[in-house]
Every structure is written in C-alpha cells, then in structure tokens.
C-alpha cells in the first residue's frame, strides 16, 4: 500500500509550522519554541485537559480549546498568547492560589515549583478573589515521602504516573468539586498502603510541594523528571 504523507501544516502565532497528523497543538508549538503554559500536562503521561492553562484560540472556532488535547489540522490558524487568553490564564491561576494554602516562603519547593513559576511567568502579581483557607491534612506516614494536601493543585499527574507507568494505581481522587482530593488506596494512610511500591515517581512528577521527599527544608526539594521521557522511549523500543 502506498504510504500517504501525514504531515500537516498550520500557523501558530503567525509562524508557519508543520507536524504529524497525530500530534497535538501543544507538541507542535513546543517543537517550534512557542511557549504555551501547562500544569497538568507532562510528557510521557496521557493528556488530562483539566488545568486549562494551555487554552488557545483557533480561527473559526468560537470556543477556546485546550492545546494539549487538540490534534492539529491542515490550515489551522492558532493564537496562543492574545491578551484575552493571557487574562483567562491569570484568572485560572489566581483561582488555584485561592483554593488551598500555598505559602511559598515556607515550602520545600520554593524556587522549583511549577505553580510559582507560572505565576512569575504570566505576571500574576496579586489575587482578587478571597482566599478559601481550607483545613487540609498532611500525610507523613510513609517512610520516605510526605503528601501535603495544602499544596496540591489536583493536576492528577501522580494518579496517572502511578497507574500508567508504575502500574500500581495507588493514588486516585475522591470527592467532588472543591472537596476533591488525592487519596492513597481507599483513603488509607500512605504508610499503610499495600499497593505502593515506594518508587517515588509520583513525588517527582508533582508540580508543587504537595508530594515531597522527607528530610528536605525550605526550597530544597528539586524534582527529577528526566526518567519519564526515558522510560517512555525505552518502552516504545521494546
């Protein structure tokens, strides 16, 4: 059978770019050094589409579209950074800051936090909405790791990496809406978990200081994410 060319061309922010038909707008943009902010997306995990940071405008579509879950199409015209989009992104980010208790100055991930980084990058200088200040627990029952729900943004990266890469499915989400939170097994203490293999992948994919290694002080928790694309590559080969 004759192999049909599957390369499609499109315009992102005025720049003509090309990509494979099964690539998302986000992938093609990143290949071409066009910045689109993300939070729940992580190379190597399935797309989630929950954080809404990567929304873009596509010409001819009335609705804003998440670039992480939208495949490219021939002739698409995409805008990633109009003032309208930036305003929405700052709004969403502000909502995230009000949701739990994000105190950077006392956080082990200070300086290495993706939430903090996005706020700096997008110029979020203040939050208009009132802070909710919920009472959230800290689970320090595991020998090596800590789960601090005060710093969680519910991006579900830990849930996905545990299920898709480690295959343990120790982490999941319980509850609805504003009361949703990450749990271990059927809401047991992490230290009691029979399914957790202690691999630590969840800790290293976590964008904030919600999942950390024990024994770190303020600003000491740097995450190592290199393993994920490597694992993915090795699996594709085998």
């Amino acid at each position, binding site marked *: 059978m004759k192999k049909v060319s599957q390369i499609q061309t499109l315009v992102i922010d005025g720049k003509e770019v090309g990509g494979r038909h099964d690539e998302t707008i986000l992938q093609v943009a990143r290949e071409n050094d066009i910045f689109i902010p993300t939070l729940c997306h992580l190379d190597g995990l399935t*797309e*989630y*589409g*929950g*954080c*809404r940071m990567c*929304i873009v405008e596509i010409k001819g579509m009335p*609705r*804003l579209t*998440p670039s992480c*879950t*939208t495949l490219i199409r021939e002739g698409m015209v995409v805008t990633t950074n109009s003032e309208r989009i930036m305003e*929405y992104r700052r*709004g*969403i980010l502000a*909502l*995230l800051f*009000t*949701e739990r208790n994000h105190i950077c100055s006392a956080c082990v991930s200070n300086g290495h936090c993706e939430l903090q980084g996005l706020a700096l990058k997008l110029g979020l200088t203040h939050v*208009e*909405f*009132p802070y*909710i200040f919920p009472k959230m627990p800290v689970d320090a029952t595991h020998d090596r790791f800590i789960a601090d729900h005060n710093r969680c*943004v*519910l991006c*579900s990266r830990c849930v996905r990496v545990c299920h898709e890469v480690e295959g343990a499915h120790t982490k*999941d*989400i319980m*509850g*609805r*809406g*504003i*009361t*949703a939170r990450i749990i271990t097994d059927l809401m047991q203490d992490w230290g009691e978990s029979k399914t957790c293999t202690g691999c630590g992948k969840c800790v290293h994919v976590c964008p904030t200081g919600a999942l950390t290694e024990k024994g770190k002080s303020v600003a000491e928790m740097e995450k190592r994410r290199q393993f994920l694309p490597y694992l993915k590559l090795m699996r594709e080969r085998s």
Partner: protein
Amino acid sequence: MVLEELQEIAKIENERQGQFEHTINVCVAAGCLSCGSQELLDAFKREIDKRGIEKWCNAKGVGCLGLCTAGPLVSVEPSSTIYKAVTVSDVPEIIDALTGSPVSRLACSSDMSFFKKQQKIVLENFGAIDPERIEEYIARRGYESLFAALRDMTPSSVIERIVKSGLRGRGGGGYPTGLKWTTVMKASGPQKYVICNADEGDPGAFMDRSVLESDPHRVLEGMAIAGYAVGADKGFIYVRAEYPLAIKRLKKAIAQAEQLGVLGRGIFNTTFNFEIKLRLGAGAFVCGEETALIASIEGSRGNPRPRPPYPAEHGLWGCPTLINNVETFANVPTIIRNGSDWFAGFGTEKSRGTKVFALAGRINNTGLIEVAMGTTLRDIVFDIGGGIPEGSKFKAVQTGGPSGGCITEEHLDIAVDYDSLTKLGSIMGSGGMIVMDSTSCMVDVAKFFVEFCMTESCGKCVPCRDGSAQMYHLLNKITRGQGRMQDIHLLEKLCDLIKNTSLCGLGMTMPNPVMSTMHYFKDEYLAHVIDKACPAGVCNMKSGGRQ
C-alpha cells in the same frame, strides 16, 4: 415473532379491554403514588369485587395523567372524566357515577386549558396504558414501528426519515438527531453501542422519569430502532438510582420484551440482535454529561473528558456510540410510524415536533405537559399552567435548570424553541420550568443554582471547581448584607472566565443563572449591596459572619 403474532396480541388485548363498559384509570406514576394512589387503586378493585361488577368495569394503574398538583388523579373511560385529589372514601361515589353524571365536586372541568392546549406525541399513551403490561403497549400499535423498520426499511432509510423529521436532541443541546445517527452509522468499528441517557438531574425536572414510569416500552422500541439504524447490537440505559420506580418498570419491560422476542436475538425473525442493559447512576449530576456518563458505565470515576473525539467516533470502550436522551428515543417510534412530514408539521421552522415540560415552582398547575414547539411562554405559564397563585405577581421563569437562565414578563410572548431561548440567554435544557413570583429573591435563586453546581462539579477542571466555590462565596456575602460593589464586578469576571474556559457543559453553562439574573434583575443585586435590603424579603440581611 411475526407481524401476525403481534397483531394477534393486540387483538386479544383490545377484546379484553372491549368487554369492559367502563374503565377506571388510576395514576400510579411517582407523583400520585406519593399521595396514596396505590391504596386508591386497591380500594377501587375491592369495591368492584364487592359489587360483583367485574364483568363490565375494570380498574387499572396507568402512567402519569399530567396534573401532578392535584393527585391522586383518576380518569374514567369512556366518558373521559378526570377526577382530582381522589381519596379512598370517594371510591363508592365514583363507581355510582359511572352510569350517571360525573361527581362534580371532584371532576376537573373538561374544557380546562391544561388538557386542551397540549399536543401529545411522546405522552400519547400516558394515562391510557398500564406501564407494567407490554400487551397494552402493543394494543396501541407498539413495536409496529420496530417491525416496519426491520422488515421494510434499510438502516439508511430509517435515518433518512429521522433526518427529514427535523428531530433535535431533547436532552438540552438540541443537536440534530438524524445527523448524530448518520455519524455513528458511518463510523467504522465491529462493535457499536446505543446509550439512553436517563440521568435526569436538574432541580425541578421530571420529564424523563415520567416517560420511563409511564411508557417504558416506547423508549426500548426507540432504542432498538436506533440500534438497527446505526448498526449496534447492545444498548445501555443509564438511569439514576434515585428513580427506583422507573428502574423497576424498565426491568419489567425489558424482561417482557425479551420474552416476546421483540428484544434479544433474531428480532422479528431477522438477523438483527439487540439487547438492553440497565446501568444505575450513583447520584452525580455531572454523569448526565455524555463523556462522564460513558466513563461511569465503564466503571471509572464519572469525569468528563475533552471532546473531540466525540462519542460518535470514540465512545463506550472506544467504540462508536450513540447517546440520546429518553425523550428523543421516545419520539422515534411515532416518527417511523407516522412519517417525517407528519412530525415536521408540528413546531417551528428550526425546532420540529413537541417538547415535554415539567412545570414547577410558584404555579397553579404543577405537572407534566407536552406542547408543540413554538407555543408561547405566556400560554404555557398562564393558560396551561393556570397562572400564579392568587395574590402574587409573576416575576420570571427559569428554563433549563442550573444551566439555563430566567425569562421575564417582557419576553413571555416569544415562541419557545431552541434558538429563541438561547437568544434570551437561557437554554431549552431538558424541559424543567421553574416559575417564580414576587416572593422569590433572584439573588437567592442564583445562589441556589450556583450552590447546586458547586457541589455537583466533578473537580477536574480548575475554572469549574474553584470558580463555582468563589461565585457561591460572593453570592453568599451579598445575600447576607455584606456585599460590596466590587463583588458584583468580580462575579461578572468569574462568569466570563468559567463560561469560556471550562471543560464540559456543566461548567460552560453554570454561570447562566447568575448572568441572566444580573442582566434582568440588576436592581435586586444593587438593593442587596447598596441598601443592604432584600426586596423580596427572602434573604436574612443581618445574619452576618462567615458562612
């Protein structure tokens, strides 16, 4: 099963019914059951036995008679008298009156607009058949459309008829049904599914519930026809566990249909197989969203996922899946039987047919109605609905539940269809209509719907999860007399953000009640914020403190 057998069943049933000179139909749908209609039905049966008149008089339970506010309802054939609020002690009197003139103290006036102004297609068997007997459905030409579709029509001609009828999805979105069916038919895959969305969750809505409780076979037949048209051999009905009666009657209906061979393998001696399974929802409103519903059937958490891909290409377990609402399927058998031109004769240019509405709130005739599309809201509220309770004044009507908006007095004369409601900032929705009068505070109403959405948000996407909580917090502040002008500005900003950036329909439409009340009743918001007063006297403006 062949056509002759089907007709034989109908004939025997018609003869059985024909031997009774009088039939007493007691409504046994949820509304009337809750005010004691089962005891009433038993009392009628006992009285008939006692008098020894069972040869010419029959009492049976039937589906919803519509005027739920005046239950338990009883209709007497052939005189077509409808009695309201009947009690067990009225039974002898009603039986006495069978041969004479009706009991005037209980009878509804026969020219009541509630009954006269309706146009019944989906509800045609309501109040006439016993929902627990398939024979009665067959006697009213049930399953004939399925037979006709399987034996005389190709799948594409079935779809063509649906396309030409102009039927649009009755779940709220109004997507053209024929187009959806075409897409699923054309999607490739060895396995396809048909799903009936019966996860009706809007506050004040009970249309789907009534259809399932009063005429379950109509939905099964519609689903089987859809399965034949799109090439699916398995169907699921996703129904809320909060509807136990609907579930019980559906189970019974499926068992009866399988026993007769109108569902199952080799239906009507053709090669077409179709089986229907029930799946019960565990109480999440968001599972009415189609991708969340699919996730829930698959056994996962009921979270929506981004579309595209649409379920028509990538649905249940990755297979092409047709999802329609209960009322949409219930329209199908009639369209196949009477033709697309007949159906398209009802309604407006872009919204054909009829729509079932559930009237609730501050209205005299609370109940279930079906009207042709294009009927004005004034007719629905003041004629059919009987207007507002005495001494009060109409304020607004909320269509589309928590995803819709309110419509005020000045717009009451618009013809109700999908497009006219959207233009007014509301939506058709699944058909709930909540009427509000001068005793309702619109800020409080908005707060109610936002609170509903906040607790029902799945929590996957940030704008819906956090935005709803923030909106609720602001509205709570305003209704406690602590609001400031900047809160109104923040509310507007939040509405815009949530509407434009949320993942699924729940979030995208959640701001509608706030936006429409802010648009039409800005003065009430300002009164709360500036004068610290609630014009309707609903909000306790001095309650102070954090929630």
